[in-house]
Structures are given as C-alpha cells and as structure tokens.
C-alpha cells in the first residue's frame, strides 16, 4: 500500500516542487493538490489521503485552521505543516512536537517526516490555535461522508440544543459540537447573545419586536421564525444597536 499524499499550497512553484520531490520517493503516491484550506478539506473527503502536506500561510483559510477542521473527521489524515518562515508557527510546532518542514524542503527531510507523520491530537490543536488572534473563517459540520464548511458570514445564528449546537445558515441547518460559550468567545465581535441558548450574527439582525405579552424577539434576515430574546439581553441589544 502506497502512502497517499495531498499537497496543499497556494503557490504553484511550491506545489510543483513538492510533487517532483514526492515522485522520487518510494512508496509514496500523490493523491492530489489543493490551493487553500477550504479546497484541502474538500479534497480530503474526496480523495481520502493518508497525509496532508499543509502550508501554514494561505489566503482564505490558512493551514492551522484547516488542521482544526480536519480533526472533526472520523478518520483524520496525518498532517505535516510546511512553511518558509513563520517564527510564531515554528515555535508552536516545536513546542507541540508537531511535524513541520521548512521550505525549500530537502528530500531526506520530507522522506523522514512522511515516515513518522502522525495525526494531530486535540490538545496539540488547541495549543497551536491558542495565541493566534485569528478566529476561524469557517464552521465545519460533520456530514455523512465528510465535512460541510460554512463560511462564517453565511451563519445566521447558533442555537444550543441539548447535546449539539444547531448552525442556521443561508443554505440550511447543520449540527456541530462546539458549545455556545466557546463560539461566543471566538466570534463575539460580530455575534450577539440574545438568549441563554441563542447567538445571532448581527449582520442579519433586522429588528427587535415585542409581542402582546411583553416578550421580546429578534427577526433575522432570511429567517422566518423569530428568535426569543431574554429580558436582560433585550436592553443590552437595544443599547448596542440603538434600536
């Protein structure tokens, strides 16, 4: 069985170089290529590679975020990060004993890294993303055979259910495992808590209504059903948006 490798880098020469290096290695097969994090996740579910060579700095979704989403898969592939120069990331990789390669990559180092490539563990991923000010650009929801990536700007609201959290977005609804509290911490600047169980994207906020019983609710663009607002949150919300 050959090791299937997916090359992820936004720069064409960098992908070409990796491809030609991999072609010279025994027992390795190139599964495919991707130019950013989003594409990497798509290709991963389509091609089921064993290892991802993942560039850290990419437009759209970067390597660190892609690695976080990958771990939501049932059978996540192993990850080796590649970077030309990124002091912060390299320190984090060293500290977490995560496999990484420095560009221009040497063939021997590539072979050695592939031989011992391992999956990232949850604590490793948490430590890697801690300290990066950047928040995720997408929400990954596990699907029948892979991941559905929901761009953050498409999310209308998060609703906490008993065990899961529902993500309502422009193209439908999905279930994710993140807690509402963690989501609020990460996306607090563009989302607002309206109720114990609901976090809304403020860009879709249309208006705040008050019904006959004196209860408040918010109407969001593109959502038919209004969401309940707790009394305490209502005044905060009206203050924040001067409504």
């Amino acid at each position: 069985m050959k090791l299937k490798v997916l090359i992820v880098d936004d720069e064409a020469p960098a992908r070409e170089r990796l491809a030609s290096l991999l072609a010279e290695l025994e027992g390795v097969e190139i599964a495919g290529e991707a130019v950013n994090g989003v594409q990497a996740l798509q290709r991963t579910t389509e091609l089921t590679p064993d290892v991802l060579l993942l560039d850290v700095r990419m437009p759209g979704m970067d390597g660190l975020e892609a690695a976080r989403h990958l771990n939501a898969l049932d059978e996540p592939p192993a990850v080796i990060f590649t970077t030309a120069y990124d002091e912060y990331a390299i320190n984090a990789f060293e500290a977490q004993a995560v496999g990484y390669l420095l560009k221009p990559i040497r063939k021997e180092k590539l072979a050695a890294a592939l031989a011992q490539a391992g999956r990232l563990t949850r604590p490793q991923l948490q430590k890697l993303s801690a300290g990066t000010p950047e928040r995720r650009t997408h929400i990954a929801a596990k699907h029948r055979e892979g991941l559905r990536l929901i761009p953050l700007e498409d999310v209308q609201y998060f609703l906490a259910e008993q065990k899961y959290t529902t993500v309502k977005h422009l193209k439908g609804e999905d279930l994710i495992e993140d807690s509402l509290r963690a989501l609020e911490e990460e996306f607090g600047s563009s989302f607002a808590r309206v109720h114990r169980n609901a976090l809304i994207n403020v860009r879709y906020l249309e208006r705040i209504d008050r019904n006959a019983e004196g209860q408040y609710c918010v109407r969001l663009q593109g959502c038919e059903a209004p969401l309940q607002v707790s009394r305490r949150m209502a005044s905060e919300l009206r203050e924040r948006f001067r409504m």
Partner: protein
Amino acid sequence: MKTEPAAGSDKPFYLPDFCTSRAALAIVLIVELTALMLTLARDSALIGFWTDLARTSLFLLWIGLAGAGLLCWLGEPLKRLPVAQGSAAVLALITGLITVVSLVTFVLGRSTFGGYASIVALFPSEPGTFLWRNVIIGFVVTALALRYFYVTHEWRRNIEMQATARVHALQARIRPHFLFNSMNTIASLTRTHPEVAEQAVQDLADLFRANLSDKRDTITLEEECEVARTYQRIEQLRLGSRLRIDWKIDPLPRNALVPGLMLQPLLENAIYHGIEPQPEGGTVTVTGELAGGLITIVVRNPVGAQQNEREGNRLALANIRERLGLMYGERGLVKSGRFGPEYIVTLRFPHIESRVKLAT
C-alpha cells in the same frame, strides 16, 4: 561570545574568565611588569637590583596566581552578583588574599631562615608597615583592574548591541518570509525551467545588492524603479496571475534624485498584506505625478475586511519616513491609511535633478 545576561540580573557581572591558560600567562606577564616597576621605583642599594626584582616577583606571583585561582574557583557565584556587589566582593577577596600572603611571608622569614643574615635581609623586618603597604597597593591596583574590566566589558557589549541593531535593521529591509519563499521558488524552477531560475537568481542578487548597498541615500528614480521591477519579477514567479501591478509613473522625471529603497518596501508591504491574503489576488497600483516641483508617488493595494495593520508595515513606513525627513526636512511627506477597501501610501518630496545624465 555569549551576551545573554545571567539569570536574575539584566546587567551581568563583567569579570573575565580566569580559568584559562591564557589568563594565567597574562597574569604572569602583568605581575613581572609590576615587579619591575616597583623595583625601579625603589632604592634597592642594600640588596642589589636583581635580588630585589626576584623577591618582589616571587611575592607578587604568589598573590597574582593565587588571586586568579580564587577568582576562577569562585567565578560562577560571583558572576551571578550585581555589578556593585560583585566588585566589592572581588576587592574584599583580593585584599584578604594579600593580607594572608603578606603574613605568611613575614612568618616564613622569621622562622625558617632566621639563622642567615643575608636571607633575613630579603624579608620584611616589621609586619605592620609591610602589611598595610601591601593591602593599600593591592586595593588600588585591584580597583583599577576592575575599572578596566568594566569599561572593556561595556565597550564590547556596546559593539555587540550595535551589530544586533544593524542586523535587525537589515531584517526590517529584507523580509525573511520573502527570502525563503523566493529560494523555494528557485529550487522548484531549477528542475522545471532552469533558464527562468537563472533569471530569478540574478534578480535576487540585484535586489540584495541594492539592499546591502551603503550608498542607498541618493539614487535616481530610474534606478529605484528598476529595483522595484526586479522585485516584482521575483514575486510574479511565485504568485503568478494573482499578482498584478499597474504602473502609472510616466509623468515622473526619471533622473530625479530619491532616497534609495523607498518604493520596493512599499510594494513588498502591498503584496504581503494586500495580495497574498486574497485567494484571487489583486492589483497594486503605483501612480506618479510631478506638480509644482513636487514628486508624488501613490501605492494602493486592496485590503481584506478583517485585516489589521501589522508591525512589518509600520517598520518599513517609519524607515521611509525617517529617510525622507533626513533628506528633505519638512518638505518630505509620507501618508498612509486605509480608505474603504484600499490601503493607500502617499510619498511626496521635492524634485531634485541628478547631475549625472541618464544614458537613454
């Protein structure tokens, strides 16, 4: 040489290492010179010059080598002390040592060689004066030596700091990110397109030559634009169609004198912050105008919705601002800021013509 300060103090004690054979040799030499000096300064008619030199040398060698041994042995704990306390400790140690050696000398002269008058003449006859003289001389000499070590240590530290500052300044000019990515591109092209790789190596060499040049202060706008285009060629290989640069600089006088390396860092910022983070890339626009004796150059690049200004950006801008200020005073101007979906940097400075005619 290591410059990291010892744990717990930001200013490490300055004592040199006494545990080396070089230090021992230096001490023997210094001791002999001091002995020579002391003997010459003294009237030694009673026992003769050479005998006096020999006994002084012997006495001083004892102190010198024992002192070096002591400082070598106690070096580690001493180096952890702050400067003032460390100096006081060394002074106390050496003074104590001199006291001990002086007393031993005196006792030795009394007991062992008591029978021979010619030998007794070599030893001090009275302990009090002998002891106090030695202690005071030793105190002064040790204090002077410590002062010397301190000054040379500070001087060396200063030089090291200056060198580090220069390296940092250099790094601010050449982004490591750019260097390593270019190397990677060249490594890739060497296999697929050797002739393009060759061109890229030449471009990179030119760019570094421009960056490392000491005569960066005055070059012509023509040369400056060539550096910027060289840089563009390298980045183009890496970013392909994602990078587009729109040059609108025809109205600029090509022989105008400009501070070197002001356009290239702006392009570098524009690409790093404006083009690379966009999956589809974008266009950097460079516009140049000449009006009323003033040259205006504007560099604009698209910015993402959630991007903040980063440190590298401010460094390069501060550097350019400083150099324009040095060259033109109040008349040089750098403005920068985000305007809607764009980040715009404007440079304005007086048009000074180069005396060297351009070959066209």
